[in-house]
């Protein structure tokens, strides 16, 4: 236990009592080479004997498992993104994700006016879909108006039922496209469809990311676990011990990333173990081993961080300016992630919190406030009885 035991940079394994800890191990997930094949999801389930997540078409591009759950310890997110509407500079040749580029109308169809405005609207409206709740004024169909009652708003209304909604299709209620009943994606409502020069519709990219437990330096789930089922391994990873967990559910709310989850019918909490059994025998975790394009890389965290920096610099040099590392820095709110990412857009686009912190950061202060409150309570009681002593 050290001075940064609750917050700030530290090496977690020695802090957790491993006097002779091996180097900290982790994942670097480079989404710029992810092809969304989902081998990681399947390899993980195969190795860890994880049940399926139900058979539900979610309509979230090719994501039909929705998110990380007790039954999906790897999860591939798919984001279809019209890039031009974002105002994002069109990436230079050689950049990573140039899609069909905008070209001028070639005039091969003289009778058809290039409906540029409609296209811009289409692309803009398209972001509605991507952005979910950010219902836009220019949005089309049922998404317009930013009304929180619209299915697209995903706002504070009860429509946001969450992913564990028992087999329902969360995408359909939680800010999903079809809720409003109209078209949602790239639909200029007043224009004759297809009258625009197709290539002008937008620049387009399809982002994919294999998400996983972050194995935080300061792990909210681990900190709050009352049984010690969650523990820090000698590799610095965070593992739930299924022989200990009693399913209190506290860890689920303790996680700032929404990773860990309780399995229905089983009652215990489950999440990625970073294949504790495999890495203990010197093997690569199942997902990283299967990953065809080395989007998921496993190794010593220090080395992975260097590798990630180099990759980031290369992408920046190639003009992919939106590339960023996520969870790599050890002075973020969780002391750095043992499983960190290279993203091509802002974290929240992928369903990641932009600036998470471990709740335990404020725990001492919380206890102090509770102490004051307790004293206040005592004081009130004393006052209540004061003057009645017989």
């Amino acid at each position: 236990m050290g001075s940064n035991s609750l917050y700030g940079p530290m090496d977690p394994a020695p802090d957790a009592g491993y006097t002779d800890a091996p180097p900290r191990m982790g994942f670097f997930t480079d989404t710029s080479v992810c092809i969304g094949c989902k081998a990681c999801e399947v390899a993980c389930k195969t190795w860890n004997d994880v049940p399926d997540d139900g058979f539900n078409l979610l309509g979230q591009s090719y994501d039909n498992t929705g998110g990380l759950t007790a039954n999906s310890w790897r999860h591939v997110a798919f984001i279809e993104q019209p890039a031009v509407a974002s105002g994002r500079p069109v990436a230079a040749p050689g950049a990573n994700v140039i899609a069909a580029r905008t070209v001028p109308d070639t005039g091969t169809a003289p009778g058809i006016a290039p409906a540029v405005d409609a296209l811009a609207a289409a692309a803009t409206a398209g972001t509605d879909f991507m952005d979910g709740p950010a219902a836009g004024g220019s949005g089309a169909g049922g998404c317009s108006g930013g009304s929180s009652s619209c299915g697209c708003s995903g706002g504070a209304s009860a429509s946001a039922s969450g992913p564990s909604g028992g087999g329902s299709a969360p995408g359909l209620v939680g800010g999903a496209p079809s809720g409003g009943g109209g078209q949602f994606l790239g639909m200029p409502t007043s224009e004759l469809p297809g009258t625009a020069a197709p290539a002008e519709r937008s620049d387009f990219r399809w982002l994919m990311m294999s998400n996983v437990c972050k194995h935080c330096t300061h792990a909210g789930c681990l900190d709050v676990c009352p049984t010690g089922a969650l523990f820090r391994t000698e590799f610095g990873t965070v593992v739930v011990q299924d022989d200990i967990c009693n399913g209190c559910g506290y860890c689920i709310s303790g996680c700032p990333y929404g990773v860990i989850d309780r399995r229905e019918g089983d009652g215990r909490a489950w999440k990625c173990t970073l294949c504790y059994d495999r890495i203990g025998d010197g093997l690569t975790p199942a997902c990283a081993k299967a990953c065809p394009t080395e989007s998921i890389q496993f190794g010593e965290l220090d080395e992975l961080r260097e590798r990630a920096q180099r990759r980031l610099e290369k992408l920046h040099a190639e003009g992919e300016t939106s590339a960023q590392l996520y969870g790599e820095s050890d002075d973020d709110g969780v002391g750095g992630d043992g499983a960190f990412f290279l993203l091509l857009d802002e974290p929240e686009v992928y369903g990641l919190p932009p600036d998470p912190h471990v709740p335990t950061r404020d725990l001492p202060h919380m206890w102090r406030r509770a102490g004051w409150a307790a004293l206040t309570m005592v004081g009130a009681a004393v006052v209540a009885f004061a003057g009645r002593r017989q």
Partner: protein
Amino acid sequence: MGVKTWIEGWPVYRQLTGTDPLGRGAAAQSKKSKELTARTETADRVAKSVCPYCAVGCGQRIFVKDEKVVQIEGDPDSPVSRGRLCPKGSASLSLVTSERRQQKVLYRRPYGKDWEELDLDTAMEMIADRVLAARDETWQAADEHGTPLNRTLGISSLGGATLDNEENYLIKKLFTAMGAIQIENQARI
């Protein structure tokens, strides 16, 4: 188990006496966790294999314990795949061990409303009888001009792209010898 062992096994005691006062690591580790080992390490044997799905031909290692397949994963030695597998290849274990796999010969008699179970040997005999009967019934020794044909058009077959070369070889050899030329596979589709 003595009281002493019991006490020493109590994480709170380990917290108080060990290097992990907050109880977040070494002290909280259970016996089971401490003794974990990968099931590939304890397998009885490993078969070198190849993924059965597409034609990339990724190397697979099949781990067997007590005559059961316990894990299938990529073969890192393969210069084709370097140990990697796609989702289908990664699902090979469940392909092989699935409880949904049919393990019994099933028979549906003409106009039957449902399957019946059938003994394997009986099925083989019945199939052999039907092959010979269909062959005799539809045999074409020669065309109307006497040009030899030596064949039957009464029997056909489809499949082979998922099978081994050795199997395809026997299939083609046997069908050709019995005069059945209508033999096709996915390569035509």
